[in-house]
């Protein structure tokens, strides 16, 4: 079965953060776009778990594609977030030195920031740091302050990007896995689990599966994904007053290290670990690692000791054998691969989309950009914002911990991006993500979501 009779200008594979931003950019530039996602819900791979930080790129490799994309993406986010109703919590970050050796490295980190054109960092003493972060351990010796590191909503943002694409003519097909494809010199016929998809160009943003998608079509891939697992511990909302800014360690050669950060939802979290593995699906957590993360958190902020844990989770980052993003255009085949977006995808997504559209234009394709594109209204899930429960006719509060209303849940269960799984509904509404983790609302949710999920929360019992 062929899904479309007229080929799309572009088929984008993978509705992660990058794919959603990509769909938006290509739509705004005037292309006819289809976004293909193998899962039932968008943001279901690497994008489902991250630190929700909008980086400045101060510590990215100098001259890399990554730093360019982060900075362009950061800039574009700042341009659009107000119109979209998205959040930006400009809390800033501190790279904290906990030993004399680390103090010695701060100057080099600051120089790297300057080389990356991040000019507003400051070197501060431990005492000055504790004036702004009074709950920080007195073992902190010195720090670099990076004012523009910010917190954003890691799910509402990409939802809004994709929504803008859909509002302006873009399409999305869910539960649609690309299994192969043929290029006849002018047009792709992608084989998918939903039938053949015809498109003139393809952009592969398949994240953890990026190499496999290229292999399924070309028999080879320019890189190999080695998933890197990161585990996180999220503390009770009462902990969020213990830190204002993002507390970063002095990085090692391999990883940025364990970060302590608030979320826009009002929690405080610590993570991620960096554990290389072969499995692309195993996002399991383990007790010992979670305990070590909590110990790391308590070493940074001693008052975290005894603070209740709200959530534990792990995410998989699509790391490759290369340090930089792997974005390349194959002009002979009308194919662009966007891979190895290992840990800065949320910050870089809008910039990656700009960069990729540039490569696409360089391949000779061009369109007329939309002059007055429709602007989406993002979901408001931020802790301090005007949440739906404050408005009349919200129905009822279903999730008491996160104050999620029935109206919010019903909205997330309808439309082209309707939640088809509990995980998808959580990302759209935050339901069950609070401290009781569904103790109070699971039954009501099972009732409200009946008939909506591929794997139902519960089945009816004859009385």
């Amino acid at each position, binding site marked *: 079965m062929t899904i479309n009779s007229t080929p799309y200008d572009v088929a984008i594979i993978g509705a992660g953060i990058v794919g959603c931003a990509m769909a938006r950019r290509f739509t705004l530039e005037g292309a006819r776009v289809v976004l293909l996602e193998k899962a039932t819900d968008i943001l279901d791979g690497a994008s489902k778990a991250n630190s929700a930080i909008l980086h400045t790129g101060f510590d990215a490799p100098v001259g890399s594609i990554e730093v360019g994309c982060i900075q362009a993406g950061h800039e574009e986010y700042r341009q659009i977030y107000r119109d979209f109703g998205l959040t930006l919590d400009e809390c800033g970050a501190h790279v904290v030195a906990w030993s004399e050796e680390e103090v010695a490295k701060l100057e080099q980190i600051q120089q790297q920031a300057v080389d990356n054109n991040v000019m507003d960092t400051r070197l501060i003493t431990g005492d000055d740091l504790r004036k702004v972060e009074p709950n920080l351990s007195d073992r902190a010796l010195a720090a670099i302050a990076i004012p523009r590191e910010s917190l954003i909503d890691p799910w509402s943002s990409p939802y809004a990007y994709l929504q803008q694409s859909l509002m302006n003519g873009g399409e999305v097909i869910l539960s649609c896995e690309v299994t192969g494809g043929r290029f006849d010199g002018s047009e792709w016929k992608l084989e998918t689990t939903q039938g053949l998809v015809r498109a003139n160009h393809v952009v592969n943003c398949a994240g953890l599966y990026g190499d496999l998608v290229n292999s399924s079509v070309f028999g080879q891939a320019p890189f190999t994904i080695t998933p890197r697992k990161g585990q996180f511990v999220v503390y009770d909302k009462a902990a969020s007053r213990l830190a204002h800014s993002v507390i970063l360690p002095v990085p090692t050669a391999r990883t940025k290290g364990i970060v302590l950060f608030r979320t826009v939802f009002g929690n405080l979290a610590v993570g991620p670990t960096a554990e290389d593995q072969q499995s692309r699906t195993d996002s399991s957590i383990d007790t010992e690692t979670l305990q070590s993360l909590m110990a790391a958190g308590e070493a940074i902020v001693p008052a975290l000791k005894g603070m209740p844990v709200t959530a534990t989770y792990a995410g998989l980052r699509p790391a490759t054998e290369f340090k930089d993003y792997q974005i390349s255009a194959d002009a002979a085949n009308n194919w662009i691969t966007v891979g190895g977006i290992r840990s800065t995808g949320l910050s870089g997504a809008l910039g990656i989309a700009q960069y990729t559209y540039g490569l696409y234009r360089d391949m000779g394709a061009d369109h007329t950009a939309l002059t007055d594109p429709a602007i989406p209204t993002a979901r408001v899930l931020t802790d301090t914002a005007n949440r739906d429960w404050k408005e009349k006719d919200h129905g009822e509060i279903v999730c008491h911990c996160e104050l999620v209303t029935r109206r919010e849940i019903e909205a997330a269960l309808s439309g082209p991006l309707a939640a088809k799984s509990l995980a998808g509904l959580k990302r759209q509404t935050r339901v069950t993500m609070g401290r009781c*983790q569904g103790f109070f609302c699971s039954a009501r949710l099972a009732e409200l979501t009946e008939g909506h999920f591929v794997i139902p929360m519960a089945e009816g019992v004859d*009385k």
Partner: protein
Amino acid sequence: MIDPTTPIDVAIIGGGPSGLAAATTLKAAGVARVVVLERESEAGGIPRHCGHPPFGAREFKRIYTGPAYARKLVQTALAAGVEIHCLTTVVQAREAGELLLAVPEGEQVINARRVIYATGVRETPRSARLLGGMRLQGVLNTGALQSMVFLKHMRPFKRPVIVGTELVAISAISTCAHAGIRPVAMVEPDPRPTARWPFTLYPRLKGVPLHLNTRPVAIHGDKTVSSLEVEDADGARRHIDCDGVILSGMFTPESTLGRMGHLEVDPATGGPVVDQFGRCSDPVYFAAGNLLRPVETAGWCWDEGRRAGARVADDLAGRLPEGIETVPVSVQGPLLKYVMPQRLNLKVSRGKDVLQLRLNDIAKGRIIATSGGNIVGQWSVNSRRERRILLSVSRLDQSAIAGPVTLTFTPA
């Protein structure tokens, strides 16, 4: 929306057994306007979804199922003139009895002369247990399972493992039986079950194998649960095939409003710090029921609610005695889990006042109270873990108390 034109004397947060008992007692004592704020669609609390007896022996001298008992509590409160507002969530509890509410019409702020905080307990979820493995559907606390089965007539799995052996785990078995769910195993890290005999006979009676000395390690599965990995006392690990996990017990007070607001919270109980009158660190606020400490029966909470109601009625009438001295009470050492109340008003203590304690392990010996280097009280105890221990405050030599009172345990 709550009628804002008449002043509210007492607002009660939570319409479970303790909240409803407090409200009923307040009305009986002649307090004019008593308002219960209940976030669910019906009042009654946890018993609403415990579709099994025995409830009500202490309160009504007969045995009810949970839902019937919950209805009886509600009817009694309404008959006494209590206002019950459902679908009403308290979002913030502020100083001077100001409460920010979410009501179906949106936001509302009310003020009450006194507030009784009676939000109860919940079980510890998978996350806070730091249980490993994949995050999958079909991993639930007993409370969520009970609501699904008894309120919604739904079942989330057919062959779960039950983790824990507190009394609520027995309720989990009974709930499963009601919905045609057949638990494949019950696992308990300790060498002996937590619940009392004869409840411990119940799993065998229902054909559920009980594995003692067995600690849950990780939940496995792809889209749904396929097994629970467990570890025995020797460190050997194995998988128990199942399609879900019931995480029972390990109750924790639902003390969010206190933690997020201005009330002092005791890390040992997880509930607000109170004196022997149930008064919180802000004297406009009182607390009652399982919020105070995990965990007691509905009947016990009902009784605590009644007493809190009586104390608040006294307070509104200016009859609640003020302590001449107030001292903190705390526990020390690994064996003593908590003590509640955490503050004592001295020289006004009544004969009935008790300290509630629990042990972390089975033990026999003496609990010794010291203050300023003096021994000010002693009690002998012989108890298992998670059993209620009541120490009479009248045994304290109040004249010898000089500053904070510390309780320690000395084995026999």
